[in-house]
């Protein structure tokens, strides 16, 4: 288990993390979501020993992360960084060696990863000569080359085209299949929904929601009702007790029902307007869940930016 436990961190008066905790099981992918400035990067940097937490700890298999364990973690920082004038192959080899591989093993692993990521022909080129997308691949190679036991990736998908996104996603799923716990942060919630076994949403300094996408859905399900009534006048549902109109467009209405509201009374009201073409509980998307939890009272700071 990779455990983030009760992390607190303030920068001066800015209380960024206020008891952040979640766990990631081996062989699962964890999507780490939150608004800009929520503290995702800070959390990951704490794990990598780049920021010192005021309280709390990060553990892998029950052990506090220290320099030795961190060398077995593959990390991709939010701000990408490589030596621009160093050759692709040499660079990946260097990072493999920093992670503890001996010279021969590092050279072999570098060779392997550079080819696997489709950079075989660019092995001898300095990194600065590569396109941004390819530089990102080198960055990934640097994170993966030492066969890390854990992967922590800060917005690995940002800046990639759809093809790049797919190949990175495939690469990460491959790691997961080998039993590596993967944590990545992302704003692309559709991607998180597609790839991740579990999701955590950070807002207001703590995890406002964690669990599988399924669990989160169930928590929020039964509240959003989609009703399509083509003949209804605009605002047909506005006066119904316990009902909030989320959106309404040419009769396609999304309603949020307060707990205890009877859906059958809504159906009756809909029928009174004329034809009812669609009436169903709607599974919220992760985007909607995200909006929901992030906008919830108690987490007002997180809405900023």
């Amino acid at each position: 288990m990779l455990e983030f436990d009760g992390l607190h961190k303030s920068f001066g008066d800015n209380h960024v993390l206020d008891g952040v905790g979640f766990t990631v099981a081996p062989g699962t992918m964890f999507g780490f979501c939150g608004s800009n400035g929520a503290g995702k990067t800070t959390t990951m940097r704490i794990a990598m020993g780049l920021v010192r937490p005021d309280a709390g700890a990060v553990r892998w298999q029950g052990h506090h992360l220290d320099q030795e364990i961190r060398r077995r973690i593959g990390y991709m920082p939010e701000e990408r960084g490589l030596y621009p004038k160093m050759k692709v192959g040499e660079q990946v080899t260097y990072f493999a060696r920093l992670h503890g591989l001996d010279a021969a093993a590092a050279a072999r692993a570098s060779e392997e990863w550079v080819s696997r990521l489709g950079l075989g022909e660019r092995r001898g080129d300095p990194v600065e000569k590569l396109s941004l997308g390819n530089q990102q691949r080198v960055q990934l190679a640097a994170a993966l080359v030492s066969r890390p036991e854990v992967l922590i990736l800060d917005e690995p998908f940002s800046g990639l085209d759809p093809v790049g996104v797919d190949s990175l996603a495939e690469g990460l799923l491959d790691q997961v299949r080998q039993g590596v716990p993967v944590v990545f942060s992302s704003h692309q919630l559709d991607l998180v929904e597609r790839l991740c076994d579990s999701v955590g949403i950070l807002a207001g300094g703590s995890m406002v929601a964690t669990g599988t996408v399924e669990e989160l859905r169930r928590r929020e399900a039964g509240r959003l009702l989609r009703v399509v009534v083509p003949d209804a006048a605009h605002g047909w549902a506005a006066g119904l007790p316990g009902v909030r109109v989320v959106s309404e467009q040419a009769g396609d209405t999304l309603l949020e029902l307060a707990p205890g509201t009877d859906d059958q009374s809504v159906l009756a009201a809909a029928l009174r307007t004329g034809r009812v073409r669609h009436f169903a509980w709607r599974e919220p998307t992760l985007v909607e869940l995200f909006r929901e939890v992030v906008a919830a009272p108690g987490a007002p700071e997180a809405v900023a930016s």
Partner: protein
Amino acid sequence: MTAPGTPGSAALVRLVAGREVSTRIRDKTFLISSAVILLLVLGAVAFQVVIASGAGKVTVGVVGDRSALQPALQAEGKAVGADVTVVGLAGEAAARTALAAGDVDGALVVGSGGAPRLLVERKADPQLTATVQGAVGQLAIGRQLAQAGIDPLDVPQVGVTVVNPGTDPTGERTGIAIVGIIVLYTLLILMGQFVAQGVVEEKSTRVVELLLSTMRPWQLLAGKIIGLGLLGLAQIVAISVVGISGALLFDVVSLPGQLIGTVLTVVAWFVLGYAFYAAVFAAAASLVSRQEDLASVITPMTVLLVIGFFIALQSAGDPSGSLATVTSYIPGLSPLVMPVRMAAGAAAWWEVVLAVVLMLVAIALVVRLGGRIYAGALLRTSGKTKIREALRAERL
């Protein structure tokens, strides 16, 4: 499967140092500057060769009877260490022409009456004057003795035995020290710049975050300083070997032992100076995040080096002066000034020990403080960090 072991501190420092060396050794700036320094030293040797081959050769033209003068001039020349050639000249006009053309260094006009006159183009070389004066005087005495009936051969000739063939051993050592100081100064500036650029490169490209996820700041700093230091040391040793071999080969120094001693002193002071400046340059560079801002933080250190360099040059002329004496103790300046004073024989052993101890104390302080600044400022990759902020920042 390759199970990664855990590299210890030494292994990490070695990896960082290895990367520094292998990148720099292919770097154009490094290669060009190495070539320039080497040429400079070879130039100094060549200059000495030319000077040495030209020294001690005197050509004297004689107007009038030179049968007696020629052997006297040559004997006299030998005594003062000059190789005298005597040529006959037709008259005073011919003498002036020969002087103007540079065919002779002086022309001796022996008239029928009165004292002989020595014509020179501009200024009389003391060696020439001494030779001519001696020869003429000897002949005159011989003549007078002969007139008095005494056989001139009975006059004992003073045999000159050269005890110390180097005319001025401390002067020679000082000259070597000056060449050494030029090399030392150039290498300190060069290596200091390399350290500073390397630190800023890692910050500006943000690669530092990835590096610090595998090692501590001090390991990164130590690797960088040691790597570039070994490169600098290799360079100064290579230059010394080439310089010494050249000097010995062309026989431009009279005392090879003193040459080697002076060069070793310079190399030792290079090591001390490098340790000091590398730490200072690294700490200063860690405060900025862009190469463009680098000049603003390292200029004070560069100025200190330049000042030290000029004081060193000045102290070659006045090695016991108060400026040279005081600055030869000041850490940071001492690596440039002390070798010159030592070469000039103006520094007592305890003075050298004191300067070294002060320098070591300063290095210890600078490495500690610089390391703290470096560690505190390294991850602040935006804008400029103040020293106070860096010292107060949380250290990893």
